[in-house]
């Protein structure tokens, strides 16, 4: 996508935001998320876009382009607990967390990972644990929602 084409989307975002201002409402979605998602192919994610997004907006953008879901408000705030980290360190920690999550194992979208991890493996999980997580994710996907919440409540009840 050329810069000219990207600029059109950026302007539409600005116009929409301008039209929203008098109502006092917030756009909720960042422009950076929009721009990062524009030419993401359906079957893979170009992770290099994360480099250009400021730290404070990177969580929303990353979750949207990777998983297609919104991380906003309280959930978003939990990721900024270590807000003193530099931009790069924050993103490395964030990506490591995501890479090791079951949500990532579920994700169908493949990553074109143009992000430097200073020579470290992107997936900081050994092969055995990775396969275990994949197995767990597959089982979890097959359990109906109602049953899932019952299991969760049972677990919480036991814990309580």
């Amino acid at each position: 996508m050329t810069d000219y084409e990207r600029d059109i989307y950026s302007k539409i975002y600005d116009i929409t935001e301008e039209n929203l201002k008098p109502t006092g409402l917030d756009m909720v979605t960042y422009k950076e998320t929009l721009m990062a998602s524009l030419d993401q192919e359906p079957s893979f994610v170009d992770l290099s876009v994360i480099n250009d997004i400021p730290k404070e907006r990177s969580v929303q953008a990353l979750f949207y382009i990777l998983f297609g879901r919104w991380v906003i408000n309280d959930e978003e705030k939990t990721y900024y607990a270590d807000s003193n980290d530099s931009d790069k360190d924050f993103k490395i920690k964030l990506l490591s967390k995501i890479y090791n999550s079951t949500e990532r194992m579920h994700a169908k979208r493949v990553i074109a990972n143009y992000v430097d991890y200073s020579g470290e493996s992107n997936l900081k999980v050994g092969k055995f644990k990775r396969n275990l997580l994949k197995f767990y994710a597959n089982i979890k996907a097959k359990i109906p929602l109602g049953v899932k919440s019952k299991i969760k409540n049972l677990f919480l009840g036991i814990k309580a």
Partner: protein
Amino acid sequence: MQKIYIEITNLTEVRSLTGIQRVEKSVALEMYKMIREQLCFVVFKSDSYRFEMLDTDLFIDYLKGDKSAFDKMFSGKFLVYEEMKPGDIFFEVDAVWNGKYKSSVLLPKLKRYGVKIACYVYDIIPITHPSYSHFNTRFNFINYIGAYLQYADILIASAQSTLDEINDLSDKLGIPRVKGYVSWLGSDFKAEKNDGEIPEEVIEAAKNKYILNVGTIEPRKNHDFLLDAFESGLADKGFNLIFAGKIGWNVKELEERIENHPLKDKSFFYFKGLNDASIDYLYKHAFLIAFPSKAEGFGLPIIESLQRGTPVLTSDIPVLREVGGEYCKYFKLNDIASFNTAIDELTNDPKEYKSLLTHIKDFKPFTWKETAERIVDALNTLKPEQRKAKKDVSQMVILTARVEDIKNTLPYIEAYMPFIKKVLLCCPDKVSDEMKAIPVKRITIDTLTDGEILKGRALPEDHGTRNFFLRCLAMGSEKVDDVFIMSDDDYRPLKTITPEVFIDNDSYVAYYCHELNEWKGVVGALSSYDHYIYRTRDFVNKHRYPGFQYSSHMPQIIEKELYQRMIKEHPGIESTGLDEWSSYFNFVQANYQDLIKSKPYICMCWPGMHSDWNMRVKPNEYLFENYYEFLYKDGNIFDGMSQEWNDKTEEENKIKIEKYTKYVDEYFEWKKAYEEYSDAYIKDRLEIPSFAVFEKDGNVEIAAPKILEVKKESIMHIPFMYKGKKDGLKLSLSIEANKIRVANMEPLVLSLNDLAILENKFEVAFAFGPKGTPAGNYTLIVSVDDGNSMTERKVLLKLS
């Protein structure tokens, strides 16, 4: 025949049809009656990210109520963009902004294949009145409308007011307006077909004189206003107020107000989930329909009410004024006094009310048939011109300044292209006589000199611009036949060629070797050929033409009139240094469906060497040779073979074809091995093996896969990306085993100018070991020198 692919995913996924889905259904049924053969309904499958084609007849059966057709209508066949013909239409009629595919990704892809794009736009409320939409809808809508404003060939709006808003938006964005049409929504609400009883409470509520509002309870419909008006006078005037519609989004307070209203079920009634018969009953018995919306795409309840002879009082906003015309009464938006005045006019003067009832009888709603007719008329403006190929071809036109080269090529043409009777050589004036004197056996030679072509105009100095300039101007010469074979002086046929190589029934055959948008030259050393490909890429992208690369280094057929048309429609094009083949064929494909049949090229020695560029298209056969002298020396592929026509040529051509076929097969085997490695890497890690060079905060960083597997001794074009501002970084790859260097390369200079043209994505041609390299594990070292320091990244390399 032009195919129309209509996207209707939501129609197959929602249980109850409201709003947009009803429109889709009605339009689909009517279009089927009109243009069945052209239609193909497609649904987006998010698990495979592809469009599945439905069986058209079974889909229509399903729409008509045959539930058994639902499972059968999914054909299992998927839309392949490369197989869509230029000129076919992709018609979006669904609420795609909340769907699963991104218009910003899909539409440019369709455009590359010459597909025309049309969209039915219901409204742009998420942009103009964003507070009435969920943030997710707003977000997705920006993507949707941004893409359609840039890539659509036509937009069809539900109202002129909507089209005006779309045009305003284009103006604000500073982009050309998309050609727009209007097709109102229809209304064929047939109460007599609706089964189901009318609930007693509905009949009870309707016994007293009442004002009705039909529609989803949502902020922009302004139900609060009606309740305010009811509480401040309407109720005292003896009116009941009835709301009929489901609860929508973001109306929690309003919902509570409705549920807890002191007059609820006394003189204020709220019904949800009513059947059509009940809605019809309420419409017919209402004193009037109140429609105080703040924003609408159309306002279907206005039509539905007028159709039943019930007066409508609506807010005076442009779209409702357009839809209601002279048949409605209007009040100032959000103005209770204005609303009450309008009510008083109708209640205080019975003649006024009666007159309105009489007038409404003249109202003729749009039918869905008319809606579909308008849509089809608009789509027909995208019908490509039909034209048949001219079959009388006997001339070859060659641009050349090299007497010796053309002298060596002509014998091949004489021997193998019997249908060519004459050759026109476009050459500098000073060599014209020499050219004419070239001995030939059968064909006649004529020249068209630079002087005759230029007629006083200056010749561009740059080689890349000059050839295109000359070819464009030569099209104006009477010496050039209506249809001819265009060639260069080093394209040699290898076997007997018949006109059927260039003409297939009523179409011209055009041979492509690559895609303009995928071409990667050597960063830091872009050639004039590379630049002319990029200029052509920008030209086709700008004009939304298909993007195949037709400079296949072999003769191709040209129709003079069409070349002249391209020049006429793009004034000044002759000075822009484009690829003379790709510009022409993509232009013709965009304008004439079925006139061009695109096929993989049939020419060998393009590329001359594996390392030259990344082959994406594998020829199925070789009928031509792109002659390179160096291939006949120094141990290269044709070393020792004849470079000129002789009595061994026939035999040698067979050997050359065999050798080059093996040469290309080897390359594609390497590619296949790389793809297998890549697929396994993706499966294992959910990652594509990616290389990148970054410059961040003054430091150079390198990203690379953990492991790379390629065939030993292979030459691969490894994809890289660059992000940064440093100019002139030097990138190189090398291979080591036990700290001994096995292979390396001359550093590539990452020039920011070149990278901008390449959109920051480039390829590095690298030989993975010289002949005799054993299979095994090595270390691939990626290094970048910024002039002050060296950054390295090591990758485990497996050579097999």
